[in-house]
């Protein structure tokens, strides 16, 4: 049995009734190519506002590729075709100001990547770049975003210290704080806890559950327990195809697609 045994036409993709659910972002026929390699075939997903959606699947399934396309971080390495609908705009269009767009669709990466600056500057840096100079305002944002990322109590006396003096888990929460300081609509997280220990991981998860009250969160994860613990919806990716997308509890209890069933029960490939 090879990894290709599944029928890519066997799909179960959830669509939302727009009268009952508010959509944050949606993709239509999103396709990604790395050179000649077709890495994502049929990205058709809708994401509900103020929910956590997990993207799961094996390595190379296209889930990170999909996520990184949403705020166009793939622009320089790949060709992305199709539509990304955000607030009535196709943000995958050439006319879109990607820098402005990324303030609305923020991203946190797999490995913590704070700037080599102080904790405070990590948060104020991008705001200052935007022209925010009011010190009082900046301090407020530092406090509120660190509180949102559940880091304030741990660092409030050390804001001048370098971000690299923090532990890995703290650095990652600082990166979350830095992203939400921009007041985005949507938070994209690319395996944010994969480089962290279990305690830091659970702190990040608590933070995310708290954050979904005000942000739409889309998270790529290798960790199926994590997906089932925190997310409302889950999409299963396989070899560049999205085979199943449903409520998380359906995905993990009664998946409709053979490949999903095999993947979550560990019978994969």
């Amino acid at each position: 049995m090879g990894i290709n045994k599944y029928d890519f036409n066997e799909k179960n993709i959830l669509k939302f009734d727009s009268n009952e659910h508010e959509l944050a972002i949606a993709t239509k026929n999103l396709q990604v190519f790395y050179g000649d390699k077709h890495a994502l075939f049929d990205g058709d997903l809708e994401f509900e506002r103020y929910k956590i959606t997990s993207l799961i699947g094996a390595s190379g399934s296209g889930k990170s590729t999909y996520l990184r396309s949403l705020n166009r971080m793939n622009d320089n390495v790949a060709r992305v075709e199709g539509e990304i609908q955000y607030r009535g705009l196709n943000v995958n269009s050439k006319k879109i100001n990607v820098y402005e767009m990324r303030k609305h669709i923020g991203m946190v990466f797999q490995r913590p990547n704070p700037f080599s600056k102080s904790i405070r500057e990590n948060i104020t840096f991008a705001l200052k770049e935007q022209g925010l100079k009011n010190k009082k305002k900046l301090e407020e944002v530092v406090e509120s975003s660190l509180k949102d990322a559940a880091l304030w109590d741990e660092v409030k006396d050390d804001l001048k210290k370098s971000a690299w003096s923090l532990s890995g888990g703290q650095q990652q929460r600082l990166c979350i704080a830095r992203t939400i300081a921009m007041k985005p609509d949507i938070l994209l997280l690319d395996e944010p806890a994969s480089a962290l220990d279990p305690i830091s991981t659970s702190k990040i998860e608590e933070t995310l559950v708290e954050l979904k009250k005000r942000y739409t969160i889309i998270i790529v994860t290798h960790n199926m327990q994590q997906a089932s613990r925190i997310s409302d919806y889950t999409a299963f990716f396989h070899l560049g195809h999205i085979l199943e997308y449903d409520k998380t509890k359906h995905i993990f209890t009664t998946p409709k697609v053979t490949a999903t069933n095999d993947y979550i029960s560990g019978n994969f490939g």
Partner: protein
Amino acid sequence: MKTKFQNNVAIAVIRVIAVLVVLILAFLLGDILISGVPHISWHFLTAPSQAFTSGGGIGVQLFNSIYLLLLTLIISFPISLGAGIFLSEYAPKNIFTATVRMAIEVLSSLPSVVVGLFGFLLFVVQLDMGFSILSGAIALTFFNLPLLTRNIEESLRAVPDLQREAGLSLGLSKWRTVIKVILPEALPGIITGVVLGAGRVFGEAAALIYTAGQSATNIDFGNWNPFNATSPLNLMRPAETLAVHIWKINSEGVMPDAAAVSAGSSAVLIIAVLIFNFSARVIGNQLYRKLTATK
């Protein structure tokens, strides 16, 4: 047994080679310093040189060396910075980039005497700049440019891509990301490279003999108007540097204490280069520590 024996032999040979390298270096340094340091005095470091009588110093040459070094850095650093940023952050893979890279490679392998002769023909003769500090600084720029560019490019490249993504994901343009995130992080490496390059430039003679010239005209340290012919800052005056001075004394020096002046100058030159090297290390490490907060 055989494996162990081979291993021991290999380690022994490598150790001998390492010790040999250190010994050669120590012998060279020791010889120069032992014969030169006794001649170094405040008078020697500040007095003008004498062509026919003993008791001359190297004040003018020392000043020329430092001034020329500063000018070279002022000219070459911005150019290298631009080229380094382009090559590391923006250069697409095409013929143009390949040509730039090859040009830098060729430039870095040019013998310095060829650079000097080229500078002589183009600047000194063709452009009528004469033997001057400016001609010398431009020749040294050719000499310094490829190394500095390569160093800046590599320092920038060493910054993880995660930092670029961090900047971009916060809505910064690529340019702002490079300037405000990548460049500060690469700074320790860049500074180290600049100072090491400065050491090389400071000791360079061949490229200067035909450009900055071999005569230390009398300069008046009380006159800092750069447009005045006797001003130390005048760009168009010929300026013999310390390294050229050593070469000249040894090939045609007629002063009675030529050997002593040569030894003293060599020691000063070596000490200066050593200071450059050590400070490069110290500054680089301290900047790195400051930026990353590692103890």
